[in-house]
């Protein structure tokens, strides 16, 4: 397994209507989870949108983002290699479970069928390939979404309150699953949340916004 | 090869010398037929009656089969829109790529096109089938609302105002204009005429005017030459008296001649009229009118006219249009047109002059009971000068256009 590069967020400043909103200057090592906390409106999601490449043109951003030696902020979203996990699993409703996973696999990936099968087995959902995502439970959907993210072989991951909508019992399981998978994959990750428990489970450094 | 520079100098001169560039000459019939092959003729014809549409469809089939000419029926709701289009094309300098090849026309529209030099011709009298009309004995085929056609339009049908009524509801239908007024008083709301400027409606005005005025001669001269107010005063007095007793008290009028038929069919009217003597009979055959309907012509006679086809000067398919105009005068096409199963429009041919084989085409067996008796049509009044039509229409709209 190749070691993943570090995610550098270099003197990034985001402003709205020339009002400064947030500033951050951090690096995230492979396998490390940086947690960004703050009340709503503090710009957490804006930071995520900026990093992922979806920042609305109404915001102005300065600074640079590097993944290892590669500058990200000048690349279009799909070339940044940053995986996203939202509150909602956002499984494509028109594709089957396997279809969702297949969509994530790089076009020239080998053995797609077996990769999909192994991914599902890993999260205990071996027979779910042909299922309609709408028929899955919340926890199952979250697991498929995680595996979809990993199959797309990202080089860093952005998590936008990924556990907020799960019920309490499930939440702990998912935290464990997500963070262990990220650690095993050796991916730098940035977690945005307002839940202290998320931050503790992530076990990495924490910064507060706002 | 012509030197293009020099050619561009000569071209206007050539155009002056030959006003219609390579216009087909009906006198040279084989050439016309050859040139027509493969052409598509856009025939602009009033499309408000399904029977005429059905006949034109039949003509199109025949033209394709017999002469390899495609005929496209461009359905008009008013012929004047075609006149307007050709005029606009001329004004825009479109002198040889016009969008209309043949127009179904007569009366004031023909006069307007002649006045503005919008017609190709003369061509009609050199058509091979024209002789069958025996024009010397039947001057109406070369006269359109008093104007000589001078070969600029070719006849294809004959119309005459014919009244019809439901004999189950009306015992003695009115036989003249005064009787009509009395009848309308006695049977309010059961008669009307199409809204001016519809041509059937306008013809009703002329019919009434001829009967009511004592200055008949004036109607056959251009309207400017007489005192319009004086001549038409009895007409307006008559209409003023008539309108309150018409359908909807004269607050609205039917859209067209065929619309009268629909209103008869719905039982809203008990007395109506048409330009086609066979109209009622065809309508009975087609379930539109009850079998008790009978047709008649007013005692003093009714207006009749011939309708024609003309070729706009800028038609790009004149040869095809000429072949079509000739086909329309063929015994075959005329007999079809006259048949009740098709349209029921009378022939312009002098049938007694035809050879026996062609005469046989016009045999239709027994007359339909709703049809006009054969002798009734002898009493035809000639159409006034076309300028009267427009003047009457304008005056009517002025008086009754806003209720």
């Amino acid at each position: 397994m190749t070691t993943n590069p570090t995610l550098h967020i270099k003197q990034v400043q985001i402003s709205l209507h020339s009002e400064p909103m947030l500033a951050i200057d951090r690096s995230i090592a492979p396998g490390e989870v940086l947690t960004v906390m703050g009340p709503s409106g503090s710009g957490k999601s804006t930071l995520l949108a900026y990093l992922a490449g979806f920042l609305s043109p109404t915001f102005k951003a300065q600074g640079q983002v590097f993944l290892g030696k590669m500058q990200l902020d000048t690349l279009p979203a799909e070339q940044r290699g940053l995986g996203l996990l939202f509150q909602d699993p956002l499984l494509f409703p028109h594709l089957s479970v396997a279809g969702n996973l297949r969509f994530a696999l790089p076009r020239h990936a080998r053995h797609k069928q077996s990769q999909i099968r192994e991914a599902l087995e890993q999260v205990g959902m071996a027979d779910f390939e042909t299922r309609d995502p709408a028929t899955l439970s919340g926890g199952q959907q979250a697991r498929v979404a995680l595996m979809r993210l990993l199959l797309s072989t990202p080089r860093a991951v952005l998590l936008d309150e990924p556990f907020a909508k799960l019920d309490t019992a499930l939440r702990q399981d998912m935290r464990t699953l997500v963070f262990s998978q990220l650690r095993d994959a050796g991916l730098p990750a940035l977690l945005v949340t307002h839940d202290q428990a998320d931050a503790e489970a992530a076990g990495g450094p924490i910064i507060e916004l706002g | 090869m012509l030197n293009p520079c020099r050619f561009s100098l000569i071209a206007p001169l050539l155009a002056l010398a030959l006003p219609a560039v390579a216009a087909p000459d009906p006198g040279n019939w084989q050439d016309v037929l050859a040139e027509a092959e493969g052409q598509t003729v856009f025939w602009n014809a009033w499309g408000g009656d399904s029977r005429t549409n059905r006949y034109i469809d039949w003509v199109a089939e025949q033209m394709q089969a017999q002469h390899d000419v495609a005929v496209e029926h461009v359905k008009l709701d008013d012929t004047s829109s075609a006149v307007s289009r050709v005029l606009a094309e001329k004004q825009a300098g479109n002198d040889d790529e016009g969008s209309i090849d043949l127009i179904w026309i007569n009366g004031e529209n023909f006069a307007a096109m002649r006045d503005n030099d919008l017609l190709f011709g003369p061509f009609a009298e050199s058509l091979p089938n024209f002789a069958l009309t025996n024009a010397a004995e039947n001057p109406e085929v070369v006269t359109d609302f008093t104007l000589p056609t001078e070969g600029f339009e070719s006849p294809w049908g004959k119309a005459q105002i014919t009244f019809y009524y439901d004999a189950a509801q009306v015992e003695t239908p009115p036989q003249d204009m005064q009787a009509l007024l009395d009848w309308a008083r006695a049977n309010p709301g059961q008669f009307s005429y199409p809204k001016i400027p519809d041509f059937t409606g306008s013809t009703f005005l002329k019919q009434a005017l001829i009967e009511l005025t004592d200055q008949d001669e004036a109607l056959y001269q251009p309207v400017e030459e007489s005192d319009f107010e004086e001549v038409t005063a009895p007409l307006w007095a008559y209409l003023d008296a008539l309108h309150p007793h018409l359908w909807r008290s004269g607050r609205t009028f039917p859209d067209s001649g065929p619309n009268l038929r629909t209103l008869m069919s719905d039982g809203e009217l008990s007395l109506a009229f048409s330009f086609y003597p066979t109209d009622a009979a065809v309508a009975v055959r087609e379930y539109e009118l009850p079998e008790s309907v009978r047709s008649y012509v007013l005692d003093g006679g009714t207006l009749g006219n011939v309708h024609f086809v003309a070729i706009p000067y800028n038609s790009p398919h004149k040869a095809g249009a000429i072949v079509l105009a000739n086909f329309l005068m063929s015994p075959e096409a005329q007999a079809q047109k006259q048949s009740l199963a098709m349209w029921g429009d009378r022939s312009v041919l002098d049938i007694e002059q035809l050879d026996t084989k062609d005469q046989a085409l016009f045999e239709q067996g027994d007359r339909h009971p709703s049809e006009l008796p054969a002798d009734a049509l002898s009493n035809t009044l000639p159409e006034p000068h076309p300028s009267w039509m427009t003047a009457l229409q304008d005056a009517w709209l002025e008086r009754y256009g806003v209720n």
Partner: protein
Amino acid sequence: MLGLAPALLVTLLVLPVGAGLLMVLLPAFGYLPALGGDAVSLAPWRMLFGHPGLGRSVAVSYASGLVSTLLALAIVVLFLAASRGTWLDRGIRRLVSPLLAIPHAAVAFGLAFLIAPSGLLARWASPGLTGWDRPPDWLIVNDPLGLALMAGLVLKEVPFLLLMCLAALPQLRPEQRVTLARSLGYAPSIAWLKGVLPALYPLIRLPIYAVIAYATSVVDMAMILGPTLPPTLSVSILTWFNDPDLERRFMASAGAVLQLGVTLAALLTWWLGEQCIKRLGYHWVVNGVRRRGSLAITLGGRGLLGMTTLLVLSALAGLTVFSVAGFWRFPDSLPGTFTLDHWQRVLPSVTTPLINTLSVGLAATLIAAVLVVATLENAARHQLPPRAGQWLLYLPLIIPQVAFLFGLVVAAESLNLRPQWSLVMAAHLLFVVPYLYLSLCEAYRRLDPRWLQVAHSLGASPWRAFWQIRLPLLLAPLLTACAVSLALSIGQYLPTLLLGGGRVPTITTEAVAMASGGSRRLMAVLALLQALLPFIGFSLALLIPRLMWARRRNMRGVA
């Protein structure tokens, strides 16, 4: 490439409308060298204002536009306020949507056959209820006040406005608003009127303006149902343009400019009304009245919409009966004999019109869909906010057809463009594009941007994300929008007639041409054919996504 789409779209719409308006404005002031007018003068205006009955024409056009829109809006709003999502409400909604597909002319014929003194209603009620054994001599259709015309317009506007409201509502989360207001003691219908309507109105304003513009200047419906002595302004203009006396063309141009003024005046009146209601309405919203009138709204809302639907359905039923009727004496409630003759007579003769109708409609819809999707995709990719320029897209909907189409014909003539299929198709594009945009932009905007963000973060290129994610997710609304466009194209009368010069007959031009005289039976056949085509389009638009996503539960109702 994609970046050019918005500019192309706007040019495509604004240029012809602009050229058309110019070519109407110039002759309105006497200037049109091609027709021998080379000096600016006010003669056309003098001629226009001297025309008998002009005032009445103008008044009817103005009033029918405003009254019909107001009535239609009231019916829709009351229904939505009364609607509680019961099976009955859902049933009514489901019935109304296909009504949108029925072209104006077909509805007009159906209504005329229904309400005429010798129409179906009178036949059904006679002689039993009325004692009539012949039709009463009442001026119902073509009445001078234009009431029949207004009724016809209402029947067509209600489904349109209802669909526009239903499309805009979800983003307002009406259930939450109503629940909240109910918890404060408001009756459900009052809760809807006070809590949802004020937020809904701004979203349906543009469609309402389009309805007003259309209703003040409609031609085909006014020819069938409108007053005749004098007719509405738009119909008069059409007659003047077709007059062989070319002088009249100048007057017609002035009339077209006047029509633009009438439409703008109606829009202005509406806008002033909006301002008043905004003031007065605010007090009403906060006056604390919680229940008064709620029963009337609940009953009235359902009753009125139900009646509208019932009227259109009876009109269709009437058309069907007439299309197979033998002789049918008044007041028999059914024809004495039935026959398929009328269908057999019409069908062979409508092959060309059918082909034209479909080819023009499909081509215009396809081109419009590509252009609109490209524009929306471009905006979505660059996260462009809606711009003021968007208003330009709706120009062809706000400017009355009569006002610029004639100018467009003159413009085409002077460019030596002959009447032909492609011109007709291009003219249809003018109306199809804005409607397609109107019905699709909301769906596009509402699609959760995170779907695409997820796709991109999974490494999908913009095009792959478009084809594999956005398009499938938007399939249902896209197909519905296309069906609306197709229906719209099928119903177009004036553009088809004018730009085709009569050479491109469609089912609609055939049907309206028959209106002036043809037998009711043949008209019924044509009107039914005219209604059938868009209906097939709508059915396909509903059916295809259902079949495609039969095994994907969340794809039902994504749109």
